[in-house]
């Protein structure tokens, strides 16, 4: 008589039996030691399906692939392998947590990044003509030379997918390794939500999570903060953060003022975050601390509501909003100086939200930061909403990588403001 099974053994056996049973044409379950393929109970297609079923039930990636030559293909062998892999995972996780405990807080690095823009280029004169704006309002008033607009076959999902593909490729991370998708988009309304739709579009594992984060133009910074927090719960995990906006369709309603609509472009950005201890690449930038808040004083400078007839109603006080943006962005930079204990003069790049290039110029002057340290996205692309500071960060990270100097630790400040006036910032080094 065989000894009684412990709880882990019983559970593993139960999973193996269930998965094999789901592939059988008859209701008679073979014995636990019978070789399922040699006895003809399962063909090789059925065997692969069984492995996938167990993978799905246990979240063990690549379960049994390849299957060791010296093992039978039996229910008992499947259960043994489930227990072995689970035991190994528990030991690895415990070791990881112990290391994290002795080293302090987990450090999260940005392992890959990428951004994509709407493929159509519309210059300032065209915008002014299309929206019946006074001549030079967009080019000289806002400082925008052109905006990038999504083509007919591009939407938030397509742009987000493209940006994610670039980031995954750079990080050399297979899509099956993503544990969390944190996504933000102001222009996607309805359900399934953007994160859920993007999860399917990217063919992420069914057992990886997907979460939408709001925050409009500050949405990316909040998403990075959420992703970092989630990774603390899973030190071996990988998070994908995506922001995507297609303003050209959402703001195309006739009641949206041209001087507002004309500022915006379409695009997406993506970042791969992992525990810095697991990084394989040199010179990766670590995501450090965050600041955030909401300044109601400026709440009325920009308001967007969906009216009862489904149209958009927009309250836009351009000058007040520009003033509020400059004031708050400067304040965030000050807060980040305190948090990082580094003066702004030591900051290599400022990845900022850019309502328009003119606001950036005013901010640079007020905040006493060299304009060339702000990777300028909005001049050629327009205001990309939550994507703006992400695209700016991508440009900064790429410049740092291209410089090839891994001997020093670059410091980057991120800052963004959004209607509310919601604000957020982060520093990276």
């Amino acid at each position, binding site marked *: 008589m065989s000894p009684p099974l412990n709880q882990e053994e019983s559970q593993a056996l139960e999973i193996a039996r269930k998965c094999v049973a789901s592939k059988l*044409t008859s209701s008679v379950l073979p014995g636990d030691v019978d070789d399922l393929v040699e006895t003809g109970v399962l063909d090789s297609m059925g065997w692969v399906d069984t492995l996938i079923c167990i993978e799905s039930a246990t979240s063990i990636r690549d379960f049994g692939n390849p299957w060791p030559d010296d093992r039978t293909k039996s229910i008992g062998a499947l259960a043994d392998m489930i227990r072995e892999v689970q035991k190994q995972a528990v030991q690895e996780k415990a070791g990881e947590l112990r290391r994290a405990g002795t080293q302090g807080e987990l450090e999260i690095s940005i392992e890959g990044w990428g951004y994509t823009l709407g493929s159509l280029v519309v210059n300032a004169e065209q915008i002014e003509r299309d929206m019946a704006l006074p001549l030079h309002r967009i080019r000289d008033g806002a400082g925008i030379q052109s905006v990038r607009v999504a083509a007919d076959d591009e939407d938030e*999902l397509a742009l987000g997918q493209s940006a994610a593909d670039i980031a995954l490729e750079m990080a050399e991370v*297979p899509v099956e390794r993503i544990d969390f998708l944190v996504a933000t988009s102001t222009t996607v309304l309805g359900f399934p939500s953007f994160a859920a739709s993007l999860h399917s579009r990217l063919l992420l594992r069914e057992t990886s999570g997907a979460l939408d984060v709001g925050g409009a133009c500050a949405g990316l910074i909040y998403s990075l903060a959420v992703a970092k927090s989630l990774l603390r719960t899973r030190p071996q995990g990988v998070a994908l953060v995506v922001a995507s906006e297609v303003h050209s369709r959402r703001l195309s309603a006739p009641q949206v003022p041209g001087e507002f609509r004309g500022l915006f472009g379409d695009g997406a950005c993506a970042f791969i975050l992992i525990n810095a201890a697991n990084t394989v690449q040199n010179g990766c930038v670590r995501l450090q601390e965050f600041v955030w808040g909401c300044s109601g004083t400026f709440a009325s400078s920009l308001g967007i509501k969906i009216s009862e007839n489904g149209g958009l109603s927009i309250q836009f006080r351009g000058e007040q909003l520009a003033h509020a943006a400059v004031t708050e962005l400067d304040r965030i930079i000050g807060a980040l100086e305190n948090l990082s204990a580094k003066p702004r003069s030591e900051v290599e790049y400022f990845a900022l939200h850019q309502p328009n290039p003119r606001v950036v110029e005013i901010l640079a002057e007020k905040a006493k930061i060299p304009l060339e340290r702000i990777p300028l996205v909005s001049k050629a692309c327009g205001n990309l909403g939550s994507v703006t500071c992400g695209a700016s960060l991508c440009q900064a990270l790429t410049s740092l990588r291209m410089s090839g100097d891994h001997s020093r630790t670059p410091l980057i400040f991120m800052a963004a403001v959004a209607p509310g006036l919601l604000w957020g910032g982060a520093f990276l080094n």
Partner: protein
Amino acid sequence: MGPGFCVIGVERVGEDSFRSVRPVPPRENAWRNTFRYRRGSVVQFDPAPTSAARPHIEDQITRGLSSRGGCLTEVELVDFLRRAEISVGLDGLFECELHTDTSGGNAWVAPDSAARSICGCQYKNVRFRVFEDPGRVRLRAKLVLPSGETLNSLPVVDREWRNLLYAFMKEHSNPRVPSDFESFLNRSIRPQLMKAPHGFARIGLARAKPNEEKCWLMLDSLFPQPNVSWLSSP
């Protein structure tokens, strides 16, 4: 399925519409290795009386096939396939309930419920998985349809894709072949598929096994078609 080639083509049924037809030799469901034509070949068949059973209503017993000359390019072929049976979502593929409660595995339909056994679709994303099985390697694909719905773990039965796998295995004889090939497909080949303007898939239904009232889905064709020269690309 079974040994041999499952061959399917399209025939014109209206000015701008086509339907799929599957010429089968008498008393068999597949053509043996003597099949002389290739994908895109324009052929004429000599039909014999057929009582096709659901869901393989496209079956047409054929006394013989003869060449009508010429062969469509891949782009032309996809253009014709797009004007045959096509669906943007799972419901429309076989116009019946699709059973996807298979724990992350493939989907199936009840034979009597399906209105057909082949359907085309655009895909918004595709990824591959390779499973090692002693003596053989299995290729599976995941697809995202325009509706946003996904098809997981479709067995790839497309001959050209399988030939690519065999060619890869021949060139690389180390134990990591399955994971290397999976990585090669997803990192080097997938971007080419995603960029191609004629990206298209044809999903078919396998014949139900005896005592199993299930027709499993399979990936019959995936365009662009692979080329063995891809293996030598950097």
